């Protein structure tokens, strides 16, 4: 609290009346701000979240065009140029033991991470939301059975599922996809179901139903828009976990197989060579950490912007 000791004397000449016609006074100024507009306004004010968003876009762009910026490829070997240290004139991130350009390998590896991120997003959006909404909407016996199934799926540790999938199929992008696809959607399904159960009891829902809205309309027009923001917040936290997970599997040798690259596999290679060629560890590690940190910070920002309870 600021206290001011200054004394101000108010005289009538300091004020002048504002001319307003009665019609004008009735007008509501400004376009109404919807939920998403409001959230966007608040998100923009959060500088950390905006910065994190920009970093994600930058990494996305580099993953797409990065390998095209150099004359080399991520798998092109040349034993004449083994272990070149990073330099601005030659190999920006150096080369590995086969003379492959690390710059290209890092960004090709980032593609894998971002593919996993997109996959998890898709699973959460489609399967998780549909499953949770249906389970919550129908309730009763349907809900009971659907929840038991989820409970069993949740009980199976994803680590074990992934390792088993990797063992049976060839380790690679397909087995990774299956492992994440099998279990990735359960947490969002549970969350959505809880919200739908709550929304179902509210008056606007009853009103719409009494007016004769059918199931499809009720779910798509009333339930999903109201739970969507929760999904987005969860996503920001599941994406780094999934990216992390792929890197972990590749690190222990069960993920992406050489000569294909993924950040985890590159970090594993780098860790073996770090004593003499630390750059081989540092570049992929830095990119991976940047991705996870950015998603988390953006997630924090989105939570503050989207969750009504966080409003001051």
């Amino acid at each position: 609290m600021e206290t001011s000791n200054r004394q101000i004397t108010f005289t009538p000449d300091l004020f002048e009346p504002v001319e307003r016609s009665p019609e004008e006074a009735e007008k509501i100024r400004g376009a109404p701000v919807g939920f998403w507009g409001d959230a966007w306004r608040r998100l923009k004010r959060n500088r950390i979240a905006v910065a994190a968003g920009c970093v994600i876009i930058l990494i996305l762009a580099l993953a797409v065009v990065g390998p095209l910026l150099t004359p080399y490829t991520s798998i092109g070997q040349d034993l004449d140029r083994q272990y070149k240290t990073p330099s601005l004139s030659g190999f920006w991130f150096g080369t590995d033991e086969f003379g492959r350009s690390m710059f290209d390998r890092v960004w090709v590896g980032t593609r894998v991470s971002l593919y996993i991120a997109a996959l998890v997003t898709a699973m959460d959006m489609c399967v998780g939301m549909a499953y949770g909404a249906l389970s919550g909407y129908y309730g009763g016996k349907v809900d009971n059975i659907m929840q038991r199934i989820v409970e069993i799926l949740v009980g199976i540790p994803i680590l074990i599922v992934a390792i088993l999938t990797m063992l049976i199929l060839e380790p690679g992008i397909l087995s990774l996809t299956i492992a994440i696809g099998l279990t990735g959607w359960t947490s969002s399904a549970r969350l959505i179901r809880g919200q739908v159960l709550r929304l179902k009891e509210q008056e606007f829902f009853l009103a719409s139903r009494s007016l004769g809205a059918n199931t499809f309309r009720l779910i798509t027009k009333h339930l999903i828009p109201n739970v969507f923001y929760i999904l987005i917040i969860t996503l920001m936290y599941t994406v780094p976990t999934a990216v992390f997970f792929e890197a972990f599997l590749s690190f222990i040798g069960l993920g992406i197989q050489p000569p294909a690259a993924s950040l985890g596999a590159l970090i594993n290679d780098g860790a073996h060579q770090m004593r003499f060629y630390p750059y081989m560890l540092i570049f992929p590690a830095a990119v991976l950490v940047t991705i996870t940190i950015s998603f988390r910070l953006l997630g924090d920002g989105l939570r503050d912007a989207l969750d009504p309870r966080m409003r001051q």
Partner: protein
Amino acid sequence: MLKYILKRLVNAFLVLFIITTVTWFLMQLLPGSPIQNAEKLTAEQEAQVGEQYNLDKPLPVQYALYMTGLVRGDLGNSYLYGGTPVTSIILDRLPVSMFLGTQAIVVGLVVGLFLGIVGALKQNSIWDSGAAFLAVLGVSVPDFVLAPLAQYWLGLKLGIFPIAFFESWWHSVLPSLVLSTVVAAVIATFTRTEMLEVLGQDYVTLAKAKGLSKLAVVLKHVLRNSMIPLVTIMLPLTAALVTGVLIVETVFSIPGLGEQFVRSIFEKDFPIIMGTTILFSVFFVASYLLQDILYGLIDPRIRVAGNRE
């Protein structure tokens, strides 16, 4: 409540049964034979080995044999290490992992609580931002990045700690530190949020109004009430520790369960993979169960049983 616990227990056993069964049958689908160099063996030798490990019997019989053994606590014998019982291999290696895990939890708890409390009491100050930054860093830097870096800087460059193997307590410092970062970060974030919520409650205002010292308010009213929900993060912590143990033990060459598991995957030592999978699953399932039960017991505001939300 009792009915609820019973129901959850039955459910937990069902989950474990399904995991075991699925894992067992998936193992059979694995490419390659568990007998190494099978082409070099005569048919007679192969039959002998097959008989020794029950490999000659039809699959359902093998499955039934495994499951009956499991009920009696027998996890079968390792294919590789001269037929050593899996149970004894696990019992050999489990204490090492448990030791690392416990040490990591203790360190993580202390550091995390400290960061969380500082963050909440000095909200929006530089201390708060610093603690929040450390917490984000802690969850975002994966163990497999941190472990080699710790080996490089603290082990090689500064030469303070041994970089691998497990011969003395001194060897356990680096791996425990690496493991504890996630724990500390999760606990710090959690404690801060919980404490801020409690600090805004009426009973805290009342305690302050009564004239209690700041320390007494924090210790007696705020901290106690914000610690209750700590049980809710048990599961993520268990998951973090199990995956952490796999990485950290592999990187630091520590003879624990995680290192054995990763190795067995490459060696195709099915009985060990099975046994460890079951053990890890028990950890996960038990922590879920404990989490739900404790949550209902500790905080009377939450009623788990019969709460059909």
